[in-house]
């Protein structure tokens, strides 16, 4: 596809046929899994301007590149959202806000890293105040590369995310629940003691 490389997973191979047929004649698929249809076509994004990638989000949600035809609209609070678009680099102070926002979102929730800075630090790889790999602290379902990516890249990412949801591979929130001990340990190694209690009970070690 022209604009974006989405997903860092080795086990996801993009199938062009599925996208061009765009769920149009698949009424039986909808009837079998209405839950997935609900997840896919109403991805409400939480409105949090985390970094410099926020400059391409207002064009996406306004009239020219209209995101509402894909079902994506910005909502006010994380309690109403199921898509978290982390636009741009993440500083240490912002990561605390991101973790708290992510933990407040109800499941199922999907995270997309936008821009090349969350992937591996990007241009600020030697800065003392930015996070280099966002993957270590919260689970990410896919990445959009670019600096800045074009607005069409967000739509390509949304379509890839639909395919991932169909195949049950968009399981960031399940990985968070399963590996919460490791994520929490990483967060505490960076910040010291955290002010909020653990989200899931951390059992004894096996």
């Amino acid at each position, binding site marked *: 596809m022209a604009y974006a490389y989405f997903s860092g997973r080795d086990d996801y191979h993009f199938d062009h046929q599925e996208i061009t047929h765009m769920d149009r004649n698949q009424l039986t698929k909808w009837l079998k899994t209405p839950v997935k249809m609900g997840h896919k076509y109403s991805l409400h994004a939480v409105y949090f301007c985390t*970094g410099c990638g926020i400059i391409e989000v207002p*064009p996406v949600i306004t009239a020219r590149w209209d995101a509402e035809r894909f079902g994506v609209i910005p909502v006010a609070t994380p309690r109403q959202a199921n898509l978290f678009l982390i636009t741009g680099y993440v*500083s240490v102070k912002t990561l605390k806000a991101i973790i708290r926002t992510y933990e407040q979102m109800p499941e199922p929730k999907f995270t997309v890293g936008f821009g090349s800075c969350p992937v591996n630090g990007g241009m600020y790889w030697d800065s003392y105040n930015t996070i280099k790999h966002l993957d270590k602290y919260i689970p990410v379902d896919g990445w959009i590369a670019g600096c800045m990516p074009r607005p069409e890249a967000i739509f390509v990412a949304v379509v890839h995310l639909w395919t991932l949801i169909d195949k049950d591979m968009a399981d960031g929130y399940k990985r968070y629940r399963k590996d919460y001990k490791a994520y929490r340990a990483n967060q505490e190694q960076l910040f010291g003691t955290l002010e909020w209690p653990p989200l899931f009970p951390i059992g004894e070690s096996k």
Partner: protein
Amino acid sequence: MRELELYFGPQHLGMVGNFSITLQVEGDRILKATANPGYLHRGFEKLMELRSWIKNYPMVCRINVVEPDSMEMVYAMGVEKLAGHEVPERAHYVRSIYLELARVGSHLFGLWAYANMLGFDTVAQWAMYHRDLVLDLFEELTGGRVYHIYICPGGVRRDFPEGFKDKIVHTLHSIGGCVPDYNDTFFHNRLFCDRAQGIGTVTREEAIAMGGTGQVLRATGMKYDIRRVEPYAAYDKVPWEVPTRENGDAYSRIMVIRDEMIESVHMIFKLLDAMPEGDVYNRIPNPIKWTIPPGEAYVRCESSRGELGLYMVSNGEDKPYRVHFRTPSYSHGLTVLESALQNASVADVGNIMISLYVVAPEIDR
């Protein structure tokens, strides 16, 4: 007296940019506001010391995301002053046209944010659409919509392509033709006037004491514009006016922004007519390793938010020794904001904050 501490925090529907304000309220009235920057701090100036002068071209524009072009301009001006490098005549005109287009785009973005805050969604959608037309022009000229890296020390990277002049004229006519619609829907709308007049007043003495520049100062009546005070590029070659208003409240600032947009459009037409032919780039002496003689320089230019300055020190190597950006949002977002929010109502926080035209990455760098 029962006080409550509220966080107008980073994740908020009214916050544009990653910035947070802590408010101490009693009922509906704000007693004390504390700005809380630092969510976007990258240690930019330290990173710039580790990269050579040429490798810093793409770094510099990412300080201000809404209008990256004035950052490139002030860096180029500083390096040219330190190195004693000349710029050809046509490059001055191209730079001025490019900066004025960026100013129009940035003001349209600010209009989106402000109109959305007040609830005028239609005007916000129009403004963002017209900004996309300007970004299409940038994409044809430089290859990128947002980060252009077009102004380099020595001139600009490439000349206008075939037929670009007509495209600029066509785009600006289509934006300018909608100004009566904007006037009827927003700027002369009684709802906007009632909601913005008398709110967030910053008097001239307060603005001078707190280091305000740009719209904050021009809304009080002083015609302080670096393009007039200390002209750079081609701003002294064409006649143009500095728009001002009298009262210093949010209404005056937004009307100054509107007048500046219209003035920028007229200025672009005049510059296109007056532009001479010639080269646009004067090559730097050594593209592999460019060393600049020791010295210091302070240059300033007028970005869409206010006075943008750069203090540079070189010690003879191929990397900068110290680079410090004086950004306009620093004093507006940290000193003026805390004073303007005193005794304001909680409902007006977003209104005042966006009318002071603060861009959060500029504060933190």
